[in-house]
């Protein structure tokens, strides 16, 4: 945020009491305070942190390999006796290790594809908003058109065109998920671009590209953070969708969607193969959504009291 917002708030009561030089709180401090008051968001952050640690280090600690097939315990239910705490699948692979390693892929897709959508969305929205006029109209019309299409169809088509490589999954999902970001960034840019500090920069002869990069985008940070947090669960969901349809990551790699798909096949004989990855996936999406909601309440200036 800009320095100018740091000025202390004038308060007649403190004035009357003779208290002087109150240290002002920056909008970021305000937001941080509001976020901490939001219990759902705070708990979600802790759960999410725990989940990330579990996914990163769990497979290192557990003695089973994800591709090890334990023929003595195929489709064994959860329990301590077999050593497979969360059971095994039809060919005897440990469900917990597979779920945790699948979680790495799901979270990785979530982060990288969100990054792709972030880069496209922010630059697209900032350019459309800053230049305005015909450029804006044409660019936003394109967004409207794409917005109206069932995007899953296009992801499926893209997966067909480019094959099922993991890198292309990132790009394909990111490439269809930037629309919300572009719209929001454009709206914010429109309101920022007529402010004095932009005018000052323009008067000093700064090029449009540098104004967008140095002055517009840093001021969009708040909304962008909110929508990044809300995009991550969407992206994870899309990847799971694709994997469920058999269009996502391929064996031996796995993701939560692929595991849920496998589990749904033998859910009658071994329901835990469905339930374990489904619970991990759901908890993650739940937490991300709550964190995003909390951040929106904390950072979105529209809702400030």
């Amino acid at each position, binding site marked *: 945020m800009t320095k100018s917002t740091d000025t202390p708030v004038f308060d007649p009561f403190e004035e009357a009491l003779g208290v002087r030089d109150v240290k002002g709180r920056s909008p970021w401090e305000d937001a941080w305070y509001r976020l901490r008051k939001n219990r759902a968001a705070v708990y979600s952050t802790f759960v999410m942190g725990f989940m990330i640690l579990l996914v990163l280090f769990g497979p290192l600690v557990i003695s089973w390999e994800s591709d090890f097939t334990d023929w003595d315990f195929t489709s064994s239910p959860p329990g301590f006796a077999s050593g497979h705490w969360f059971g095994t699948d039809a060919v005897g692979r440990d469900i917990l290790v597979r779920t945790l390693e699948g979680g790495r892929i799901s979270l990785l897709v979530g982060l990288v594809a969100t990054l792709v959508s972030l880069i496209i969305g922010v630059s697209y929205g900032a350019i459309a908003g800053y230049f305005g006029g015909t450029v804006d109209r044409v660019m936003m019309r394109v967004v409207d*058109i794409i*917005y*109206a*299409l*069932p*995007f*899953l*169809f*296009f992801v*499926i*088509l*893209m997966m*067909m*065109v480019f*094959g099922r490589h993991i890198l292309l999954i990132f790009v394909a999902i990111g490439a269809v998920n930037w629309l919300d970001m572009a719209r929001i960034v454009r709206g914010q840019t429109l309101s920022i671009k007529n402010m004095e500090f932009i005018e000052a920069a323009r008067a000093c002869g700064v090029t449009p590209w540098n104004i967008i990069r140095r002055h517009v985008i840093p001021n969009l940070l708040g909304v962008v953070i909110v929508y990044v947090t809300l995009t991550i*669960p969407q992206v994870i*969901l899309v990847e*799971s*969708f694709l994997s*469920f*349809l058999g269009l996502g990551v391929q064996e031996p790699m796995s993701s939560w*969607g692929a595991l*849920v*798909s496998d*589990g*749904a096949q033998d*859910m*009658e004989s071994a*329901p835990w193969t*469905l*339930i374990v990855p*489904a619970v991990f*996936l*759901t908890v993650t*999406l*739940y937490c991300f*959504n*709550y964190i995003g*909601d909390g951040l929106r309440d904390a950072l979105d200036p529209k809702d400030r009291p």
Partner: protein
Amino acid sequence: MTQGTSMLRHTLSRVLGLLPTLLMLITVAFFMIRMAPGGPFDSEKYIPAEIEANLSAKYNLDDSLPRQYLRYMGQIVLLDFGPSFQYKDWTVNELIGQAYPVSLTIGALAMLLAFVLGTLLGITAALRQNTGVDYGLMGIAMLGISVPNFVIAPVLILVVAVYAGWLPAGGWDWSVASMVLPVITLALPVTAYIARMTRGSMIEVLHSNFIRCARAKGLPESVVIRRHALKPALLPVISFMGPATAGLISGSVVIERIFSIPGLGSYFVQGALNRDYTLVMGVVIFYGVLIILLNFAVDLIYAWLNPKIRYDEKH
């Protein structure tokens, strides 16, 4: 200019604006699917080169891509989607004609359920803001958004169909019993979105001046809600109908697969995997037209409901 003529002009310009959207949709889908490696005859066991050439010639696949594109566009204008590559003896028109009543029935019922239930839950939560009811309902709504369709569906099948045996686990025979589970699973995420949206906008409306005025003049709360708050509160929900339909269609791809329902979504995925160019294009165009028309209808309803919008020369 009067409101009536400007609205008419707005409608006309919107109708004209639909054509480029449709053209772009068809063009992008056409070239994307042709760029995909593999062809429609790859799955045949072994075809001598001459026969494959003959096959390609029969389906005009040996022409240059731009000529194929122009030929295809010419066909579409006459509403002829051509023969299917995978389902021999079937034209795409016949396949779509057979599948769309199923998909449309599920989709329309799910949309109806989502709209009615979602707005009711949202209003209930808004009227009891920051109470246990509100937190409970919104917690459930968050769950509805976070739990994917393809997780809910198998769990519901397991509990309701396999263990309890109340409903069939899949299939489609136009009976109510075979519709219940697919419609509910398809509607759940949209219901949750609509409930959250309605709650938010209802709370905002209830804090506005005209509601304070309505209360100040002594109207009973139920009348304030029904006559004054409901319409503006539902505006965002109306404009969400377009994206919601797109979401329902995406969801139906998975739902139709899980419940083995012979709808358009399963044709699309099968067609995409088998490089059945004409079938995939047919489904994309069918859904594209549906969504575009629906967005258009939503736009008109929105303008009709919202007196604040005036379609002047500016737009």
